[in-house]
């Protein structure tokens, strides 16, 4: 590994791999830093090594990853798996951790392709063992073929929930119920966005196809579910909720939830890139132009980390960022960039037709984002409840960072990944102000925890 590259790419999902392939082909010295053991990111996890049978169960969208990973392996881009990035600053210095050793390397250009995380939504009982995010269930399935053996209740909102139900159905898992918390009113408000979504009808037909199969298999799918909670002594035993005006209970030791995904912004925050509130996606994302340039010189974003648009879009955005880097490094001319980028720009446009509809349709209701249940723990690391957060606001700490100072929420090892958005929503709710006015937690490095010994291993000459 060199100390300096022309281009460093953080993340080995579709955006990162496409960007690396695009630039390495033109002779740019380029390395991909990947937290995972192999290329693919979350969406195409284990794509190179997965057994054919399991791959089939995961569906055709997943298999697209094969080609992307293969092209990347063909290219001259360097690849560093199991490499944790723990800091990024505006001088484009990147703190990395490999084999317990910390180092700092730098680059002329950085493409942050950090992808998405599942939106954490605190609800009563969400911290009980046996309640997990659906993505975690998917990771176990993709990488190790592990599926629940005592059945599962799936709850939440968004396309991934449907996909996971379908995948579990094909893997022979008992899906006890699929509880959709999307308010029924969303169907109406999303309607004006529907005609444009028809331009990306393959997504719609796929979604409808899943629903038909699940229905045929007799899986109970309940829509308009509210008051979701998990109950049990030291372990999830029951899933309780309200449906069609009635309180209902399903016995289950496993509840997988999913409330959509949001960009992983901790690196761009740590680099001090400007972020904006995306009201439609109900999340913060880094500001960027059509090529992925942020407001910090030489730092670009691509893929879901720049705003949620899905895997196919991420691939196009990765290539566009790659072309932009080639232009900025003087490898190709502006005209050349524009010419080479034309197809990806067009395809990305096509991909995005579905988004406005999806975002309206799966919009998470406010009362879920800002839980009204005072006893629900919001910050798991520091065990701070929604009630304590509301109390702090009433005492005059009226933005997210002041609430953090006062209550310690967001100060634990997860660095606020689990509670950042929820705190902003609760503070906004309590102050009757829009969420974007609340700001997000100030990013504090390291972006990923490292031990005292690992930090001490940082070579003294690392920065000189």
């Amino acid at each position, binding site marked *: 590994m060199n100390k300096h590259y022309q281009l460093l790419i953080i993340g080995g999902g579709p955006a990162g791999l496409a960007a690396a392939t695009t630039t390495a082909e033109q002779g740019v010295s380029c390395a991909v830093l990947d937290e995972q053991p192999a290329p693919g990111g979350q969406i195409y996890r284990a794509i190179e090594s997965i057994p054919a049978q399991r791959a089939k169960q995961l569906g055709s969208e997943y298999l697209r990853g094969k080609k992307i990973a293969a092209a990347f392996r063909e290219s001259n881009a360097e690849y560093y798996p199991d490499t944790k990035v723990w800091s990024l*600053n505006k001088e484009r210095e990147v703190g990395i951790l490999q084999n317990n050793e910390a180092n700092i390397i730098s680059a002329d250009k950085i493409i942050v392709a950090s992808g998405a995380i599942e939106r954490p939504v605190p609800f009563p009982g969400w911290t009980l063992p046996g309640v997990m995010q659906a993505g975690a269930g998917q990771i176990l399935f993709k990488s190790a073929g592990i599926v629940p053996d005592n059945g599962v209740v799936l709850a939440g909102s968004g396309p991934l929930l449907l996909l996971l139900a379908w995948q579990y159905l094909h893997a022979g898992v008992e899906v006890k119920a699929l509880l959709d918390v999307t308010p029924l009113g969303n169907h109406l408000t999303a309607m004006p966005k529907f005609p444009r979504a028809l331009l990306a009808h393959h997504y719609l037909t796929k979604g409808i196809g899943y629903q038909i199969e699940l229905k045929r298999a007799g899986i109970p799918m309940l829509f308009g579910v509210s008051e979701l909670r998990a109950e049990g002594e030291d372990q999830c035993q029951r899933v309780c909720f309200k449906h069609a005006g009635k309180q209902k209970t399903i016995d289950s030791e496993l509840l997988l939830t999913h409330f959509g995904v949001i960009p992983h912004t901790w690196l761009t925050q740590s680099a001090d890139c400007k972020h904006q509130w995306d009201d439609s996606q109900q999340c913060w994302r880094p500001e960027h132009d059509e090529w992925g340039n942020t407001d910090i010189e030489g730092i670009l974003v691509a893929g879901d980390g720049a705003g949620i648009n899905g895997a196919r879009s991420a691939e196009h955005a990765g290539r566009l960022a790659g072309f932009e880097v080639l232009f900025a490094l003087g490898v190709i001319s502006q005209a050349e960039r524009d010419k080479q980028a034309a197809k990806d720009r067009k395809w990305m446009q096509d991909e995005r037709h579905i988004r406005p509809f999806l975002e309206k349709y799966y919009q998470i209701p406010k009362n879920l984002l800002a839980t009204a249940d005072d006893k629900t723990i919001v910050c798991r690391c520091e065990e701070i409840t929604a009630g304590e957060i509301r109390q702090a606001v009433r005492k005059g700490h009226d933005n997210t960072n002041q609430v953090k100072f006062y209550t310690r929420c967001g100060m634990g090892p997860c660095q606020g990944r689990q509670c950042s958005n929820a705190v902003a929503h609760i503070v906004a709710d309590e102050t009757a102000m829009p969420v974007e006015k609340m700001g997000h937690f100030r990013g504090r490095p390291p972006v990923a925890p490292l031990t005292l010994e690992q*930090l*001490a291993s940082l070579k003294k000459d*690392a*920065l000189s």
Partner: protein
Amino acid sequence: MNSDVLIIGGGLMGSSIALQLAMRGCRCTIVEKDSPGRHSSGVSAGGLRLLNRDPAEIPLSVEASRMWRDIESLLGSDCDARFPGQIRVAEDKADMEKLEQREALVRSLGYEHEEIIGKKELYQLVPALRPGCVGALINRTDGYARPYHALTAFRRKAESLGVKYCSSTEVYNLRKEGEGWEIRTSQGTFNSDILVNCAGAWANNISTLLGEPVPLTPKALMLMVTERLPHFVDPVMGAASRKLSFKQMQNGSLIIGGALVAKLDFEKGKTDIDWSQLAESADTVVSFFPQLKDVRIVRAWAGIESFMPDNIPVLSESQTQSNAYHAFGFSAHGFQLSPVIGKLMSELILDGRSELPIQPFHISRFN
């Protein structure tokens, strides 16, 4: 808006001064360019340290120490203060001599709060310390509190006595109006009889407006904090000849500091962590406590603070203007002093003199 006293800067010092003035019946307004405690007050390590003070600060720090013991009666909150003592460890004979000289100096000034302890007592107090250290200097009454809680307690108490806080209010200009002041800010014009400069790292902007610039250097001091650990150490830890400073907080996490300076863009108010220094600091901690090597660091940050060339604050009336006062330049050890600063500055403002010896802190020392 009219007030008797207008304080520039809503940190601990401004709040403490406002509180004491309000207790004596003054109407105070605090103007703060960001939010109260946004900078050094809110992000400090919260150390209540009398140990190893500059001789000039000792009388103030002794009084502050007394006030912290009884902080609840002043503020209606204990600020989560603990008093497990603070020590400076001697690693060898040379270190020990250095500490003995320090103890002798403090005794010669008539104080007995700094004590030498031998190896045996050191390991009784800190059994987790690596073997081979020879002794330490200790102040048994030192400790720590939670900075933002302290700030909030000062602020709440001050507000309950009528002090008004104006956040996001940046001072643009000062103009003498008769004997009083007209203060132009980003939120309009304020009028006040008396002006107090508690603007921390930005205090030189204010003293320059008063025609008496000072050699103040803003610096961003770094701290890092670890995940929570089972309780393993009581006193606040320092070392005689190495940059070590850490404490285990109320919740079990370690706060590690030691006067490490981050990169700072003062104009933009932006700081950037210098990892090579923190690496050295991590190395020092692990060398004193090898069992901590696998403890995870979860956060590092830097707060912007004012430093004077002699590392002691400016506490005095203005030498160019009547009805203007200064309290700034605490050089990264102001937290412990905060209650006493309110007391002595309110005396200086209302009585023209303080009971405490504050002459060494006069702004004229930079003339």
